[in-house]
């Protein structure tokens, strides 16, 4: 059940990092969201043999990580979900693409090796960019940006509620799992005979909680949409920040 504990810790860590008040945190949330999507789109648009130019795209995460005083190690830990799948897809490239592109000393570097390296770098850069977004922008502000981009209130509200209740339900599941583990020592996971009752109990508690949440929201004047909390306005320097980076991406892509 350490997975639940890990998830709870990760949520609290991201919350505390995103809640800091550095220059990068004060950039307008929509600007960071748009920039992240564009950056990832630019990164994945490189051809499979365009390794040098792709490496140069590392300028963006490097600059933001160092100047924003963010931890590289926190971001690198997040690669554990993505890298195995990317490796699995790319591992066959050196086997099927054996055309030698160049020699590094005596070793012939094949197209497959280059394309696999490019795939891994794309995976790493895109994860780092997503981390930069979430480590500098609280989820509430991302929801605010989505609302500003006219994403329907139904979706944004349920997204916000899901995020808020994940930590509550994770902690509840952690307590249940701990109680279960104490009563069944040496057992790995939940026995199949209690699959239904274990997750089902959590589900019924969640449904009851949803009902209580709804009642309390009604009492606080909820009418189908949350009003967005005060977020600073988009300033000229936020637009400048966006344009400078976009220009840099275009320059790196075509330069």
């Amino acid at each position, binding site marked *: 059940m350490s997975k639940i504990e890990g998830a709870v810790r990760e949520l609290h860590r991201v919350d505390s990092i995103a809640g800091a008040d550095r220059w990068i945190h004060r950039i307008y949330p929509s600007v960071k969201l748009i920039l992240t999507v564009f950056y990832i789109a630019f*990164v994945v648009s490189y051809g499979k043999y365009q390794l040098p130019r792709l490496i140069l795209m590392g300028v963006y995460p490097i600059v933001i990580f160092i100047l924003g005083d963010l931890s590289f190690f926190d971001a690198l830990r997040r690669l554990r979900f993505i890298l195995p*799948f990317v490796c699995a897809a790319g591992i066959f490239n050196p086997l099927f693409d054996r055309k030698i592109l160049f020699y590094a000393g005596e070793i012939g570097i094949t197209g497959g090796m280059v394309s696999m390296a490019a795939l891994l770098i794309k995976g790493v850069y895109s994860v780092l960019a997503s981390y930069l977004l979430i480590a500098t922008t609280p989820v509430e502000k991302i929801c605010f940006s989505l609302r500003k981009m006219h994403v*329907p209130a139904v979706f944004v509200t349920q997204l916000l509620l899901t995020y808020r209740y994940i930590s509550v339900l994770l902690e509840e599941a952690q307590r249940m799992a701990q109680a279960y583990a104490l009563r069944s020592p040496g057992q790995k996971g939940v026995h199949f005979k209690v699959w239904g009752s274990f997750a089902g109990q959590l589900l019924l508690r969640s449904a009851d909680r949803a009902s209580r949440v709804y009642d309390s929201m009604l009492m606080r004047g909820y009418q189908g949409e949350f009003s967005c909390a005060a977020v600073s306005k988009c300033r000229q320097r936020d637009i400048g920040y966006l344009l400078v980076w976009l220009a840099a991406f275009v320059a790196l892509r075509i330069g």
Partner: protein
Amino acid sequence: MHMADALVSPAVAGAMYAASTAAAAYSVKRVKHEDDIKKIPLMGVMGAFVFTAQMINFTIPGTGSSGHLCGGVMATALLGPYAGFLTMIGVLLIQCLLFADGGLLALGCNVWNMAFYGCFVGYYLIWRPMTRRRLSGGRILAGSLIASMLTLQLGAFSVAVETLLSGVTKLPFSAFVAVMQPIHLAIGFVEGAITAAVLLFVYQARPELLDDKGKSGRQNRFSYKRTIAVLGVFAVITGAGLSLAASSYPDGLEWSIQQVAKAEEIEAEGGGVYAAAEGIQSATSLLPDYAFPESENRMGTSCSGIVGAVFVLALCVGVCYAIRFWGKKRIK
């Protein structure tokens, strides 16, 4: 089955975003049409439940390993297809942002592969026809198992197709499918068994939670036939449309530049200042045009390009640390 950003090309990601957005827009419209504001908090809390349930290890008897829940079919059985679909998008978005499980650019693909099939195809083809007239333990068990296995098979096949169209792997499509489908058949069976166990528990404890959610709102807007028709249209679009995107033509940006410049590379005209500047650059540059000096072969181009790129990044690291150091010193 979460796809990473690195595994999709912008064209495929864009197409899948468009398809998923269309399904999401229709779902929002239907949820609004139901005009039940109580449903939104329920969707939020159920999203958190699905997320939490995915973290629980369920021991698979006789194997020593454990399985996990995906939750698409369960969310749909409890909330209905439209609210279930929106809830699953929220779960996938949070997984992608907070836990790097799936990519932001690949979100459209992941929504389609893991939420669309489970919430619409699984619901309208399997779950609803099996449980609409009469709800029983056997029907819940069969519906959950078949719906989960079918939707995971469709999802796994979509992953293979999207990866093929993105052109990121040299692994032959047939080999990729041959690996993906059997694995996801087993995963689908475990997913179906867990879903069935939970829904059977709910059926015994609170049967009202499993009322036919498709009854609310207008009837049969997405019937069995419509589901098949939409899937057929999507298959045609995927086959005909995306195969064009995977062609050997230059990408959009390169094409635009070629159209504007009418040439592959922009050459400077005339001599004078340009020639002088070029002379100075050739004489001083370590790696002219990404090649070692005097090198004409591809080795020079590729190897020196990589060395040059790493050198630039190292320089960037140094400059950034210097700026941070002076910034902190100034604050002190």
